[in-house]
């Protein structure tokens, strides 16, 4: 078999395994946890039954059906997994009878629209600054940058969000206090809406970019320090190659591990940005989770996590493959030399 195909199928196998494990966890949680969260939810529904008996009965039937209550566990699991693979994530309770998948899909673009640009920007700027700090080691530049990187990397996104919000929206009223656009406006492809959108976008974008940047810079700094001491650097130096050229080599070589880091850290950045959405009342999936939690809308919470994690696993898979195509060392690994 073509070694690359072999590598690809191994990674794909791992992707499927991870996904099934995750689905299994999601399936098991509401059923295995003592105190049964579902029964709490059902009794809460019954208490509200006086207000709107017909609706509550319909929701109740839907829940019984979707969670397969009363059926044997393995039947429940196979029903659950086949529904998930066909994209049916159940019905929302708080927004009954709307489907979870439809609702999550309407929130997902906001999350991705915030997450992807912020992650990439932080990655690029963080790597550049980290390489600069490594190159300027033992100078004032590094001594000033390093504490900033360390502190930023340990600053929770949402707290930085609160601080930025306080400074730029409350003390100096330069940016709006929250939301993705001015309430009452209808999203449209007009310049006016775009400006309004960017105005609301700036602070959430900055809080995620700044906090995520610290970690990248620290990683790159260490990597580049190691690399700067490699033999080829002193060799190139003794040949009289210009500094800028050597730096380019060093940068490229230190960059490779950072690409894997990008795949690995997508998850934690996503987690942080979900909470940041709550601070800004930004209409993404984090805000959706936050509001669903207070209404005990388990199908909605479950569905949101399924979609988020599937997106993430798929993104990691793509980065993995792209990385294997770029890095000659891995290429030798799968072609066997």
């Amino acid at each position, binding site marked *: 078999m073509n070694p690359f195909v072999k590598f690809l199928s191994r990674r794909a196998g791992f992707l499927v395994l991870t996904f099934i494990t995750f689905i299994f966890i999601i399936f098991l949680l509401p059923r295995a946890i003592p105190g049964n969260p579902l029964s709490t939810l059902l009794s809460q529904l019954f208490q509200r039954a006086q207000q709107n008996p017909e609706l509550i009965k319909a929701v109740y039937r839907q829940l019984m059906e979707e969670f397969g209550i009363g059926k044997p566990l393995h039947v429940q699991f196979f029903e659950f997994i086949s529904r998930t693979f066909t994209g049916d994530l159940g019905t929302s309770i708080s927004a009954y009878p709307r489907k979870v998948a439809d609702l999550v899909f309407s929130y997902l673009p906001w999350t991705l629209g915030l997450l992807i640009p912020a992650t990439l920007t932080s990655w690029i700027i963080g790597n550049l600054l980290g390489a600069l700090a490594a190159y300027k080691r033992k100078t004032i530049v590094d001594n000033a940058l390093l504490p900033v990187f360390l502190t930023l990397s340990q600053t929770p996104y949402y707290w930085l969000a609160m601080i930025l919000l306080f400074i730029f929206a409350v003390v100096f009223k330069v940016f709006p206090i929250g939301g993705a656009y001015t309430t009452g406006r209808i999203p449209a492809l007009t310049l006016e809406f775009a400006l309004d959108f960017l105005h609301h976008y700036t602070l959430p974008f900055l809080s995620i970019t700044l906090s995520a940047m610290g970690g990248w810079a620290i990683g790159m700094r260490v990597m580049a320090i190691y690399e700067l001491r490699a033999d080829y650097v002193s060799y190139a130096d003794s040949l009289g190659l210009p500094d800028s050229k050597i730096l380019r080599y060093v940068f490229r070589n230190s960059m490779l591990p950072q690409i894997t880091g990008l795949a690995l850290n997508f998850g934690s950045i996503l*987690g942080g940005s979900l909470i940041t959405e709550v601070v800004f009342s930004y209409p993404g999936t984090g805000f959706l989770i936050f509001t669903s939690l207070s209404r005990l809308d388990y199908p909605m919470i479950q569905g949101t996590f399924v979609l988020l994690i599937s997106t993430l696993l798929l993104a990691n898979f793509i980065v993995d493959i792209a990385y294997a195509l770029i890095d000659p060392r891995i290429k030798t690994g799968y072609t066997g030399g």
Partner: protein
Amino acid sequence: MIPPIVMDLIKIKKLIISLSIFLAIVLAGLIGPIVYPVNPVVMTGPIEQPPSSKYPLGTDRWGRDVLAQLLHGIRNSLSIGLTAAAISLAIGVTIGVVSGFKGGITENSLMLLTDVVYALPSILLMMLIAAYLEERNPFLVSIVIGVTSWPWVARAVRSQILSLKTREFIDMSRMAGLGDLRIMFEDLLPNMASYIFMAFVLLMSGAMIAEAGLSMIGLGVTRGISLGIILYWAQLLEAVRRALWWWFIPPGVCLVALATSLLLLSTALDEYFSPRLRGE
């Protein structure tokens, strides 16, 4: 006699700075509630007072003393961080040591498990598990954080073991007829004590940040107080919009200072133990 290693360590500036910051906050959490005996959950004053001599950090929406909340919050966040880190470390080290030492199918299956859990982002797993727990006490939150944060430790410990187990002293133990368990825990583990300590420090700072994150999205401890819970209420009751800065700035500063000092501490130790990074 002071052992020479202590003398060496004292000379590291990073280590001294990070330890002082960390210990100062720890002391505030341990002794603070005794020196400043105000009940953090009882309304003791007028609502939303800015800092004054009577209320050094002001009061919140229910007239609760923010400084008292902060001191108790530090204490609880630290204990959640410690417990969660201990749980992660126990799982990670066990899996790492056993898989690295045993090899074969044991290693393959344990590493597959580690890789699968590693691929699932821990903060999302935590949120998911916590969402199904109705009553979340501090210990339960520690468990949720602990059981999701260990994979990187398992991987790192395994690779350390792989290089350690080819050393001669291990062969000696084998020749002496020692069992696997004794070799693993008496020969291999003590040789990576410094490394495991660094992992613990990082796990602890990660766990404290994770606790705050869970609290912020509404999944923290259901009763009691922590740095994250203070931030959660401040956020929910719009402290930022209404410029009640004394309510949300101090808990965040403490959290960042705790986490940063721990990271700095582990960096300092790392540089001490692997001279390549120190760089002359």
